[in-house]
């Protein structure tokens, strides 16, 4: 008997993903990830402006089984929720709804969760629901890095103390990771850190350094 790393629910959503496709004239949309990192997901939402609830959600995925299954479950979970409720759906909740995901696949599946949040943010920006732009500080960077998963543990790099130091100076962000440069996952972590920090509006340059 083969033990698949995926639960039956994950496999079911992988084989028959729900809510697949684009929403034409979506009220909010966002794409997370890129072909370079191996996974990419686009999330589209329709919002009922009277109640601020998500009336429809769809996704497209270029990615592995975890990515597809999470896109499927997150759009299911989002439908009918208010924007604030939907924004707070965590990776853990999505993962639990799928009967658990392998730790090493956390970085592929977290994209769909972020995709939903970004689509909501996109809606809020378009509808004047956001506050002033916040300047990037060490704390802002640290918060962002909580979305970068340490593939060894499936937990984020801040929580697992891999981020040893963060410096922010004149738009240049330096992140020191407590791993040797030739570590198995050094490149993956570097790419993910870049991806999360480079997009901050006032960041000009990001340097990821390793302790050895």
């Amino acid at each position, binding site marked *: 008997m083969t033990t698949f790393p995926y639960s039956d629910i994950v496999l079911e959503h992988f084989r028959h993903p729900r809510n*697949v496709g684009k929403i034409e004239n979506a009220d909010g949309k966002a*794409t997370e990830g890129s*072909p370079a990192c*191996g996974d990419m997901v686009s999330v589209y939402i329709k919002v009922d402006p009277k109640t601020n609830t998500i009336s429809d959600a769809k996704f497209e995925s270029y990615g*592995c089984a975890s990515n597809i299954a999470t896109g499927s479950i997150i759009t299911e979970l989002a439908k009918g929720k208010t924007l604030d409720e939907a924004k707070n759906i965590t990776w853990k909740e999505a993962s639990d709804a799928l009967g658990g995901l392998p730790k090493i696949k956390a970085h592929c599946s977290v994209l769909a969760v972020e995709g939903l949040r970004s689509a909501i943010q996109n809606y809020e920006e378009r509808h004047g629901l956001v506050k002033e732009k916040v300047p990037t500080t060490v704390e802002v960077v640290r918060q962002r890095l909580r979305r970068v998963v340490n593939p060894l543990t499936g937990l984020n790099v801040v929580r697992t103390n891999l981020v040893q130091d963060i410096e922010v100076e004149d738009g240049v962000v330096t992140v020191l990771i407590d791993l040797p440069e030739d570590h198995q996952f050094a490149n993956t972590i570097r790419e993910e850190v870049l991806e999360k920090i480079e997009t901050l509006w006032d960041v000009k340059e990001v340097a990821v350094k390793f302790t050895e």
Partner: protein
Amino acid sequence: MVDKSIYLDNAAATRLDERVLEAMRPYFFDTYAVATSEFGYSQGIQARERLDEARGVLANALGAVPEEFVFTSGSTESSNIALKGVALALLKKKGSHIIVSRIEDFPVLHSAQALERQGFRVTYLDVDGEGFVDLDRLRDSITGNTILVSIQHANQEIGTIQDVEAIGRICREKEVLFHTDATHTFMRVPLDIKKVAVDLVTVSAHTIHGPKGVGGLCIRQGTQIAKWMDGGFQEFNLRAGLENIPGAVGFARAVELVTPEETKRLQQMRDLLIGRMLAEIPHSILNGHRSKRLPQNANITFHYVEGESITLHLDMHGIAVSTGSACFSRSLEASHVILGIGGDHERAHGSIRFTFGRYNSMEDVDTTVQALAEIVQELRKISPLGKDSGKEDLQ
């Protein structure tokens, strides 16, 4: 879930041939003694004789004499011995520069990187879009400080066969040693060290329906190489450790069982698969050279879809293949081979390797093409990529 499974990952490991197991059996239960010298006891002498016979078969397959063939635990160890053994032997005598291709398999690549961390200088030669090393660039990279060139016979992923004859001539002319990793070509693509100026050849039993954990390194007589695995005096005092006699016997038997007809049959399956995939699945491209490639290897990228999703769907159809996608690998990195031939990440993530073996049939090809056509079409429907490049015409 499926009644018949189709195994197309023969580059990773092959099914053992029963006849190999039969040949090995007596060396587990009857002649299990250590190989002794001729002054030992009967069972030990028999064990040694049988080991010598197996060595003769292996050496002969490479055009070598028995003294030139050392049994190891597989190609990883063989390549480690080749690179580190030569590095240790020649560091003080000749130099500290090593040349490898950028698309070598990990045993060579990571041995080179390990030596680099110890202070050796390593040149990683780029390859062209089909995976070939540029011979002029190789020639120009060799300096008076160069001790070793290590370039594979054929690539593990895209199957491209290098011109080892020409590489050997350059190395001989420049007086540097030449190692080639022949793990995937052994017994499928001829390599005779009498004709090719190669000094060290890595081979393994696991690719030719032999046992896992057995390989060898062919070392041309007179090659300076330091002992890497210390211990007893086994294997001409080059590789210590109790000899794996059943393994060696199994390896030799596996060699005897490979025929040119079989290799031709694998090539027919390869050609049918490549031809049909490219014709029947739009937006698919072949990685590697069309004809200068391993007879048992096909590697195709299906654009706009990710490899792990493809392999999982294929697995549900009972078909086993591998992919260059990051999600499939233990390091979460995309194939360095596809990136090395100038492909982008998407080309690597969507690449699937099919490798044939003794137990595959033409029918397997048909089933696989049919399953893949459906899977790729379904995955493209949900992919956000390629919408502007005429993907609609597929649906």
